[in-house]
């Protein structure tokens, strides 16, 4: 195509919902997405379509067939390819002006602060609970707001924004590691929360057979496309709120939580925990 696209042309339809000043804030904002999978992928796409032009995508994984059931960046044609590199290609196809830094590697205790430092918002779209602690600890230390998400069988999920002045991640989600050094033993205890979530999800309608197999390592985390994607959509909306900072559009800061249960009425609600923190095994 010869036609060169202008920013104003692409985002013309945003005006009226967003002011020009807010659009400019989005254009200049830097968003880091850790994990370009089921939630991170669609959230990155939404951010690009809202006019965000600066991204850092961090993911050391490659696309595999079981990603196709939900991950919006995955296609039969890019199986085996780097998620971070494919995210860059796809986001640039939405807005060729986007500037994307990619890190085709995983976040670790050693590199977290360095990788997450040059950004305005961090989306944690990872699925290992120990890694998530590392991400939100680094964000807190760096003074950068971060967005936590959860996708839980059968039809549940959550989105929560964290900032240096809101309830810290591990406290809000009642982690055994809260306020302590992250030892190998504590990492194991944190990771074990996910096993409890698998057990609890049966009471919400997930198959007991799946839960048993998940706990034995025979099956991966169960998720269907619309649930992962609605979580990603809601997370992208929170990212927008964290960037434009409109006084009547306050992000859902911890310990408040955007709760999603597509089998309940309402399907999405903002809730505060009764005693200041959430039992993560039930989210």
């Amino acid at each position: 195509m010869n036609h060169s696209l202008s920013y104003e042309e692409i985002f013309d339809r945003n005006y009226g919902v967003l002011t020009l000043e807010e659009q400019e804030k989005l254009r200049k904002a830097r968003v880091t997405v850790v994990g370009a999978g089921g939630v991170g992928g669609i959230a990155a796409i939404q951010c690009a379509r809202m006019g965000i032009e600066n991204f850092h995508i961090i993911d050391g994984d490659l696309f595999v067939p079981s990603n196709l059931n939900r991950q919006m960046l995955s296609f039969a044609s890019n199986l085996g390819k780097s998620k971070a590199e494919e995210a860059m290609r796809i986001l640039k196809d939405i807005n060729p002006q986007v500037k994307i830094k990619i890190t085709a590697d995983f976040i670790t205790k050693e590199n977290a602060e360095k990788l997450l430092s040059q950004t305005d918002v961090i989306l944690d779209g990872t699925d290992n609970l120990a890694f998530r602690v590392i991400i939100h600890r680094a964000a807190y230390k760096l003074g950068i707001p971060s967005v936590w998400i959860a996708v839980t069988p059968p039809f549940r999920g959550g989105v929560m924004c964290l900032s240096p002045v809101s309830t810290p991640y591990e406290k809000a989600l009642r982690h055994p590691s809260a306020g302590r050094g992250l030892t190998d033993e504590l990492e194991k205890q944190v990771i074990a929360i996910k096993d409890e979530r698998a057990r609890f999800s049966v009471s919400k309608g997930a198959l007991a057979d799946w839960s048993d197999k998940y706990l034995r390592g025979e099956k991966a985390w169960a998720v269907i496309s619309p649930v992962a994607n609605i979580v990603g959509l809601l997370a992208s909306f929170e990212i927008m709120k964290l960037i434009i900072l409109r006084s009547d559009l306050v992000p859902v800061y911890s310990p408040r939580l955007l709760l999603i249960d597509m089998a309940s009425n309402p399907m999405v609600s903002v809730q505060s925990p009764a005693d200041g923190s959430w039992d993560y095994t039930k989210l």
Partner: protein
Amino acid sequence: MKKLDVCGEQCPYPVIKTKKEIKELPEGETLEIITDYICSLESIHAFINSAGLNAEVEKVDSSKWKVLVSKNKNE
């Protein structure tokens, strides 16, 4: 044969460890990776293929897999 047991470890640790071991694997040697998590098996397999190497997967039992990968001098 070098062995890497990543049983009990969740993604992405098994892939991170596999990457490191393969990088350090001498030419002509074989690495045996044991995992008990299907998600890790899929990721390890994809990584080995992307590195241009061949992975041989063997099911040890209902939730344990052995992955053999060689750095063949002729490849």
